[in-house]
């Protein structure tokens, strides 16, 4: 009788966990928003703490010689968001690669980043020798 109760309790807890994970969390655990998603929010995205992720558009990276701000553009292939960052990016921050920035979208449409994280792919290969 005690064992049946134990098994029953275990099944209920396990069921609740599965429900939470598959039902509730599946759509909700999103580490970063794409440029399209951020722009789709319109004015409501302005000033709200956001994680924005995409590819760094090749040729978009430049540093303002006077303010020393780093500027680049993130894209998901459909929409683009210009980003401004003050400081040194991570060592592997590269154009054409993934990057995730934390910060807020300003009213002028520029994303002010507080931090930059580099996202890399699951592909591993030695460098191509020219």
């Amino acid at each position: 009788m005690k064992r049946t109760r134990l098994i029953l309790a275990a099944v209920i807890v396990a069921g609740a966990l599965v429900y939470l994970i598959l039902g509730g969390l599946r759509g909700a655990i999103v580490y970063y928003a794409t440029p399209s998603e951020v722009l789709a929010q319109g004015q409501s995205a302005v000033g709200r703490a956001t994680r924005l992720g995409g590819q760094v558009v090749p040729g978009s990276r430049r540093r303002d010689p006077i303010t020393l701000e780093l500027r680049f553009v993130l894209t998901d292939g459909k929409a683009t968001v210009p980003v401004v960052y003050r400081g040194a990016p991570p060592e592997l921050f590269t154009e054409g690669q993934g990057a995730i920035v934390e910060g807020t979208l300003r009213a002028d449409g520029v994303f002010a980043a507080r931090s930059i994280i580099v996202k890399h792919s699951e592909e591993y290969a030695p460098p191509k020798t020219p």
Partner: protein
Amino acid sequence: MKAQTALGAAAVLLLATAVYTSLLASPPDAFQGEYVRIMYAHVPNAGVAYLAFAITFVTSVLYVWKRRPDYDYIALSATELGVLFTGLALVTGSIWGRPVWGTWWTWDARLVTTAVLFLIYSGALLVRGLSDDPQRGARLAAVIAIIGFLDVPVIHYSVVWFRTLHQPASIAPGSLKIAPPMLVALMLSLLAFTVLFAYLLRLRTRLARLEAGVEL
């Protein structure tokens, strides 16, 4: 005892070979450079942690069902080793994340579910230790271990189900995204860690049996 010594010798030899292939014989990565070598320590730690908890899961089910103490000795030993290797996977992941991602830690689904796994099985060990009656402690630990194992598939598929910073698996059925010399280094390292784990598991299980006052 002979088998145990042979297993230990094999682990030492394989680990030495794995160190050589990981650090010297394998090439750097096109994007990550030398940092990719941390993968040869990180992935085997995580892989062995999965294996350890799979063993904990099976032996816990058997223990709850059959009530034979032998199953509990294995479950206890595999839990301890699983917690150790999960901890090492978290630490090596952090060390890898710092230069490559630019952060030691972030609240990504893969990272969080792995930290939860560490806590679940640490909790199982804690509950076992807190119980006055060893058999009751073993039963409670087994129930936690069985339910907690649900987290392992969640960790594994977290990078597929959720949008994460952590990259998906490089080795999956029908898709291999890792160059052959790097794959060799990774597989060798996986094998070395697995043999080391087998060695430690046998040793710890024997110790658990001795501690319980049962003759070998």
